């Protein structure tokens, strides 16, 4: 492994390197005397080349990323020691080969130039040695007492057996030490819903025919969402054979809601009434609303093959009702079961940040060691954690950034990125997963384990060995072979958490009393943003620029509000609202969302950051001050008024309907079984006097094509980030997105059709359609976009002069233009993160999806070297690889048995804008809706 000492570069205007670059350029211009000079830097031959490393050939390593305490297995691609792309680990149960937004975008944070690089004490720079001395048991004991009663640890949620063992070691030294866990929007509702505490639900969607999701975004957020999305979509891939049906009740409009066959918007308080009705109906009672009755009926018709899933932030009653319904329908034990939570500290409220805050207020804490997280930002304002932390006499914070918490801490230690550290964690189902570093810490960051070791007074351990030791207790046999085997695989298969039996607390199952809410009172629901999570991903340009799956807004959060409620309050999109509860108020612009629950505002967390992160600063509004101290995600009775200010959102899709143009098509299951054609033009070739598709002679052995199944696409946007990472797509910033200049080669079009109070949405990944008869090609005056013999519409950056005629003539508007030099001023570390197989484009040239031509050519070369024919299935595009639902299929049409050839012949297949005779190589499969006939007015 190579050490990249980027942090040794001073951040001056004129660094040594830029000076040398300038010098080199002037020498090149001077031209003649250059040959007598030796380079200023010594050049060494690559003597100690690692045996597995061939320059130019990337290596792949298995590792895991931990989010909210649970691990997702990943495969990371590295070029000469630089991680460049994060993929899912196909064998890991939490990934199955897919990688979500946060997993993929975490790569950008490794190279983030805003990462903290220096350890400090107060405002003075300090050293690791000084920190070790200050926090050694010898020094600490005098402060925190012999038993450590005045010592507190604040950890992020973790399931890591290694960290648990380190904490145990520390406990032997400080038996009275207090450990707190900072779960910004933790599984609060689950706690207290059952007779037993500290349990988590597990689901098997492969076996579920009918799913009722209540305030849950299980397809796109939360632990195991990639797995759930795969299992869910597997039951929709061939609609004719055993398609599942999804009901969603929710207050905001989530990705899961968009994928639903039937969705009902309900205010947070109404969710439990709906569940109570369903439970009552399931138990044979009446009086349910038509919706609840139909859902109950459907669930009852599929006993043991249904799932009622609840969002983890829902109230205890919601969880209890859902569990009772699952029990009553014999789903429990089949499609739903419970296990003990493997998280450190479980869901014990005595370990919460609130408890810590109280302890500090009571003067019980002298030394607080905060390991990760950002509690000064993410804790509800009413807790006042930031002020508490500042009162702690001796505090240390291990963090990646000089953020809000770092500001409140005395000592600050830069944290290592997970791709820089050894570690372990459990997946949501209990699979023991290994965290393996790909690079040495770029900025000398430290891991949680290293800090815990300092506190324990042990010399800096070999963390790798420590992991190895713990791994032996988790199914890795002793000996190098087993160890390297486990590392190569990234996890230990076959270990799952033991099931436990729990029953919902009966007192929670009483029918809900009529909510005595004044008419028109507004309830606020706080929610994680699917992109920046709790704010820890806020400094990530890829995620900030990723359009929200529903609203398509970027670089912002907003008060999401139903159009009807907005009308009542006289609000339109962009009006800045003053939302107040008592004497606390936040000002946040409103964004109208059709299908949002009425009288409810959804406020996404994670924005309005005020730390030293330059990307995150000034983006969106921090709504944490408004959150109630108990951490509840619901806040009733707020006052909402307009401030009169206006705010412009940077939205990537302003027009929400299809104008009847049928670009994204839906069939009902009945229409499908009737054999209704999805396209009336298929197999009809337009009569023309011209030769068929002009320039290309499509005679290569492979003819590349793609199909996208709108039936399984949920619009989660993982493919968009995958494309951005793979193809070095720049981030353009808020202003340019507002002016429709985002560079995404692949975008997710989201269409909203139907009544505004509860419309249907359909998402459609839109990328270069690689038209055989491409309109862009004939209009280019310099022939910069041409056709390859294997069916790719190619873009020759070097030849492009930037007339943009190709974009004007592209009916799909998938071409992207470098209006200015978007890659100017990249830091050294950011440059390291670029994919060396893909050109970084200069200003003034057009670019677009290439079908990941670099991967195609790589596979071709590999096949040629091996002297064998290439199979189309050997190539996976980046979007396809990341897709949690396998909605994207890529391959060669010349192989009659390939998935792509088969799907192009499917009854659901159609091409977008086929009337233009562009002959796209991208085919869409119409979405199929599995409607419940009793909820459809027209059958």
């Amino acid at each position, binding site marked *: 492994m190579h050490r990249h000492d980027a942090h040794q570069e001073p951040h001056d205007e004129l660094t040594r390197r830029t000076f040398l670059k300038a010098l080199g350029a002037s020498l090149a211009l001077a031209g003649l005397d250059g040959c007598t000079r030796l380079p200023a830097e010594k050049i060494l031959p690559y003597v100690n080349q690692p045996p597995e490393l061939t320059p130019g050939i990337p290596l792949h390593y298995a590792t895991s990323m931990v989010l909210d305490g649970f691990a997702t297995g990943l495969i990371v691609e590295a070029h000469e020691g630089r991680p460049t792309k994060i993929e899912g680990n196909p064998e890991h149960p939490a990934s199955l080969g897919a990688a979500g937004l946060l997993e993929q975008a975490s790569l950008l944070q490794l190279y983030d130039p805003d990462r903290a690089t220096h350890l400090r004490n107060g405002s003075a720079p300090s050293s690791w040695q000084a920190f070790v001395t200050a926090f050694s048991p010898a020094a600490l004991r005098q402060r925190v007492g012999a038993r450590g009663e005045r010592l507190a640890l604040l950890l992020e949620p973790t399931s890591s057996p290694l960290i648990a063992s380190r904490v145990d070691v520390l406990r032997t030294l400080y038996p009275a030490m207090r450990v707190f866990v900072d779960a910004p929007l933790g599984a609060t509702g689950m706690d207290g819903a059952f007779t037993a505490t500290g349990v988590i639900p597990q689901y098997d969607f492969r076996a579920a025919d009918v799913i009722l999701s209540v305030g849950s975004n299980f397809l796109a957020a939360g632990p195991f969402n990639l797995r759930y999305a795969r299992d869910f979509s597997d039951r929709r891939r061939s609609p004719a054979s055993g398609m599942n049906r999804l009901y969603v009740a929710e207050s905001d409009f989530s990705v899961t809601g968009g994928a639903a066959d039937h969705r009902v918007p309900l205010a947070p308080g109404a969710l439990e009434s709906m569940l109570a009705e369903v439970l009552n109906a399931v138990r044979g009672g009446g009086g349910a609303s038509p919706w609840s009755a139909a859902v109950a009926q459907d669930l009852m018709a599929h006993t043991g093959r249904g799932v009622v899933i609840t969002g983890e932030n829902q109230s205890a009653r919601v969880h209890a009702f859902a569990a009772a319904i699952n029990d009553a329908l014999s789903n429990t034990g089949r499609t739903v079961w419970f296990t003990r939570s493997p998280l450190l500290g479980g869901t014990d409220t005595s370990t919460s940040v609130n408890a810590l805050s109280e302890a500090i207020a009571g003067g019980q804490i002298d030394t607080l060691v905060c390991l990760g997280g950002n509690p000064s930002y993410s804790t509800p304002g009413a807790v006042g954690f930031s002020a508490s932390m500042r009162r702690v006499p001796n505090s240390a914070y291990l963090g990646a950034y000089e953020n809000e918490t770092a500001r409140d801490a005395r000592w600050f230690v830069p944290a290592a990125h997970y791709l820089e550290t050894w570690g372990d964690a459990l997946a949501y189902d209990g699979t023991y997963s290994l965290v393996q570093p790909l690079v040495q810490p770029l900025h000398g960051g430290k891991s949680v384990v290293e800090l815990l070791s300092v506190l324990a007074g042990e010399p800096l351990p070999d963390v790798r060995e420590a992991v190895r030791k713990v791994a032996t207790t988790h199914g890795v046999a002793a000996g190098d072979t087993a160890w390297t085997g486990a590392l190569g695989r990234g996890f230990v298969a076959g270990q799952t958490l033991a099931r436990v039996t729990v029953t919902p607390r009966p007192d929670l199952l009483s029918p809900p009393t009529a909510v005595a809410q004044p008419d028109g009172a507004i309830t606020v629901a706080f929610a994680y943003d699917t992109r920046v999570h709790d704010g820890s991903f806020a400094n990530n340009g890829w995620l900030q620029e990723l359009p929200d799956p529903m609203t398509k807004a970027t670089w912002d959060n907003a008060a999401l509000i139903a159009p009807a409620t907005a009308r009542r309050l006289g609000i339109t999109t962009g009006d800045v609202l003053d939302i107040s509860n008592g004497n606390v108020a936040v000002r946040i612009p409103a964004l109208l969302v059709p299908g949002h629950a009425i009288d409810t505002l959804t406020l996404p967390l994670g924005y309005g950051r005020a730390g030293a992160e330059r990307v995150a600063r000034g983006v969106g509004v921090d709504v944490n001050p408004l959150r109630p101290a108990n951490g509840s995600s619901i806040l009733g009775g707020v006052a909402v008024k307009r401030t009169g200010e206006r705010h412009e959102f940077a939205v990537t899709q302003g027009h929400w309907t299809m104008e009847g143009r049928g670009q994204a098509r839906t069939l009902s299951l009945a229409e499908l079984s009737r054999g209704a054609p999805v396209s009336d033009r298929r197999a009809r070739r337009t009569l023309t006097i011209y030769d068929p598709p002009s320039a290309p002679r499509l005679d290569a052995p492979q003819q590349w094509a793609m199909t996208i199944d709108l039936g399984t696409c949920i619009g989660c946007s993982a493919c968009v980030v995958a494309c951005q990472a793979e193809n070095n797509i720049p981030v353009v910033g808020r202003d340019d997105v507002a002016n429709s200049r985002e560079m995404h080669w692949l975008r997710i079009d989201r269409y909203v059709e139907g009544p505004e109070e509860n419309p249907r949405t359909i998402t459609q990944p839109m990328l270069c359609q690689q038209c055989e008869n491409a309109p862009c090609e004939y209009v280019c005056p310099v022939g910069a976009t041409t056709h390859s013999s294997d069916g790719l519409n190619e873009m020759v950056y070097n030849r492009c*002069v930037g007339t943009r005629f190709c974009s004007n003539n592209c*009916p799909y508007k998938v*071409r992207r233009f470098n*209006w200015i030099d978007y890659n100017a001023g990249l830091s050294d570390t950011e440059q390291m993160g670029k994919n060396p197989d893909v050109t970084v484009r200069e*200003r003034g040239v057009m670019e677009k999806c290439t079908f990941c031509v670099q991967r195609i050519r790589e596979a071709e070369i590999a096949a040629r070297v091996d002297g064998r024919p290439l199979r189309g299935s050997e190539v996976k595009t980046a979007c396809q690889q990341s897709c949690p639902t396998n909605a994207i299929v890529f391959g060669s049409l010349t192989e009659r048995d390939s998935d792509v050839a088969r799907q192009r012949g499917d009854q659901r297949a159609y091409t977008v804008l086929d009337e233009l005779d562009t002959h796209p190589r991208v085919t869409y499969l119409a979405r199929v809706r599995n409607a419940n006939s009793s909820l459809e007015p027209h059958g």
Partner: protein
Amino acid sequence: MSAAARPLSEQPARTDRLALMHGRPSAGELTDHLLAPLWRSSPLWWLLFALSSAGTLLLIATVTYTVARGIGVWGNNIPVAWAYAITNFVWWIGIGHAGTFISAFLILLNQRWRGSINRVAEAMTIFALVNAAIFPVLHLGRPWFFYWLIPYPATMNVWPNFKSALPWDVAAVTTYFTVSLLFWFLGLVPDLASARDRATTRARKIVYGIFAMGWRGSGFQWQRYRVAYVLLAGLATPLVISVHSVVSLDFSIAQLPGWHSTIFPPYFVVGAIYSGLAMVFVLVLPLRRAFKLHDIITDAHLDALAKLTLAMALMLTYSYVIETFMAWYSANPAEQYTYLIARPTGPYAVVYWIMTALNVGTPQLFWVPRLRTNPVVLFVASVGILAGMWMERFVIIVTSLNRDFLTSSWHTYAPTWVDWGILAGSIGLFGFLFLLFVRFVPSVAISEVKALSIQLSAARPARATSDA
């Protein structure tokens, strides 16, 4: 000198308003009068020159900024990848059409009235083309590679893509510019010789002498000159048609609703001549007043130009109607949306309706004979038409792009200060060049006016009558 200070005819022969020339000045008087602006300037000229120089500096500044930063400093985006730059290009090149139309077309049609205004019109053509030529280069993402659009034997053996209209566009515009420049210069030679002969300083004598190319006015020279002039006119005439036809293909070869239309070539040519005629009015009317050319540029000229303008307006109106009808008749929802919904009711509806009012409504004034010779009406109407024609190109380009096939990519366009600066600056540059022209080059074709005067005297020695 004194002759220049007063009108040519002591007693203006207003008996026939529509005479081609009032009075019968001698050739010497005519030469003196028409060369007078070359020898002295006026405060008004300096004021206008300062203004237009400021505009030119603004153009230089905004162009420099654009090239330094990239065209991202404009408001363009995806889907509206073309906007002000191409609008300006088409507008200027359209204006550049009337000059050659008046000179070449009318000479072939033996319209004698052209002689008094063809010089101004040709100069206008040159300067409009200079302006127009800025934009296709400037709007490129990498303008330093503009020459890749030109077919030259590159070592890599790559050629422009001749299927695209843009290389043809480059060829058509450069051809047109070359021929227009030659035509203009050829027409200037006898007048430059006059200037040389009457130059007040030695330096002027030398400079005008160089450009006069040894013209002596011999019968032999005149005979060769006439042949060359008519030949060039013959060459330039088809170019008037072809240039804007090719420019229109920049749009109509696309399949974009709003561009994808077979009527575009004649429609664009008509629109081009229309806007060019308006610009002729805008230039000639103040010139006539400032240099007291009422006897040479008479109401007959204004009347004829106004009639032509009206004829062009009617043809243009026909194009508007047919284009919209065809969109409806095509039964293509995207076409119908663009013409029947997006343009009249979309985000740029205001521009669309102002454009329609200016281009279709304004010239209807010219049905009234009195208004055809009223300089104020003509000037105001012409400015309106120029604005309307600029808006027409804006509507064609921006409203077609901003709402095309897939509703998901619809987005509006808003110009930035740089867009406005370049537009204003290009008008400044045009004024700058034109002011230099009227100051240093005879702005009326002296030799032609003298010939006309002789012709008119020979035909009806006693009185001048209508010839129009």
